[in-house]
């Protein structure tokens, strides 16, 4: 999972989740590893930040349909980040429902960053907006284009279920 916890849920309207960026995560050692001329630069990859927002928005959408729909990320309409997130930072993803239809949904996303205080900091750290990620989701069973998919909902697997349970969100059935 690319989010650690859901911290706020307004059904079918807004979902907020947080992600702590840790040096223990292996990808930070590769992104970017030291070279002969440059020191290592550990940063949370933008692709995984987009995935974090997709999981945030996807849970909001799944919850709105009692997790019966197979909610698939179909399109990244827009993704902009103005700052990098390194080890010790916390990302906060706020997904807001823009449109929700039978065939799918579009969501707006705000990315905020909490950078931990350094010894030289004069003020307490606080979340500040650093990016936007807007997404389009498809409800797979309503956009089959002649294809068939398994009946069980393979989208919301064990990882999602554990996250929802530990965040205090009820899963039907």
């Amino acid at each position: 999972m690319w989010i650690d916890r859901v911290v706020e849920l307004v059904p079918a309207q807004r979902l907020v989740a947080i992600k702590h960026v840790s040096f223990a995560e292996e990808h930070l050692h590769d992104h970017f590893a030291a070279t002969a001329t440059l020191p290592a630069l550990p940063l949370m990859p933008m692709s995984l930040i987009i995935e974090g927002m997709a999981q945030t928005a996807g849970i909001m959408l799944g919850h709105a349909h009692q997790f019966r729909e197979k909610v698939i990320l179909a399109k990244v309409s827009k993704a902009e980040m103005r700052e990098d997130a390194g080890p010790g930072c916390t990302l906060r993803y706020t997904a807001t429902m823009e449109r929700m239809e039978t065939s799918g949904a579009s969501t707006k996303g705000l990315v905020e960053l909490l950078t931990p205080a350094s010894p030289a900091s004069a003020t307490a750290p606080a979340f500040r907006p650093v990016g936007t990620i807007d997404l389009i989701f498809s409800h797979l069973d309503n956009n089959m284009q002649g294809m068939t998919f398994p009946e069980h909902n393979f989208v919301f697997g064990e990882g999602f279920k554990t996250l929802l349970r530990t965040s205090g969100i009820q899963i039907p059935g």
Partner: protein
Amino acid sequence: MTRDEIFGTVQELLVDALAVDQSDVTMDASLTRDLGAESIDFLDIVFKLEQAFSIKIGQGELFPEGSGNDPRFVKDGKVTPEGIAALKARLPHVNFANFEANPQSNKVGELFTVDTLVRFVEAKLSKAT
């Protein structure tokens, strides 16, 4: 709303949805062949049209789903006359003139041009008034 105004708004939303240059969005441009739209972009375009023109578009009303591979209407890679008749009935905003000469099923997506969207919106708005 005039046809030119509708075209202007459609042009803007296609630039946004498909990341194309405004100059490429001409009335006869095909959404798939000329503007690079993929099937999922159709959902985005429907959402954007609904928002821009305050209209409601039913599922499959603007873009038919799976029509290019419906076994009832496709034979040997071509849409049958029955299939074309069914498409025409469902999609009165689409111009089938060129398609009928060579109705390859994998070309169904190319039926949808910028003009198709403008005609569709025109019809929706005229019904609403």
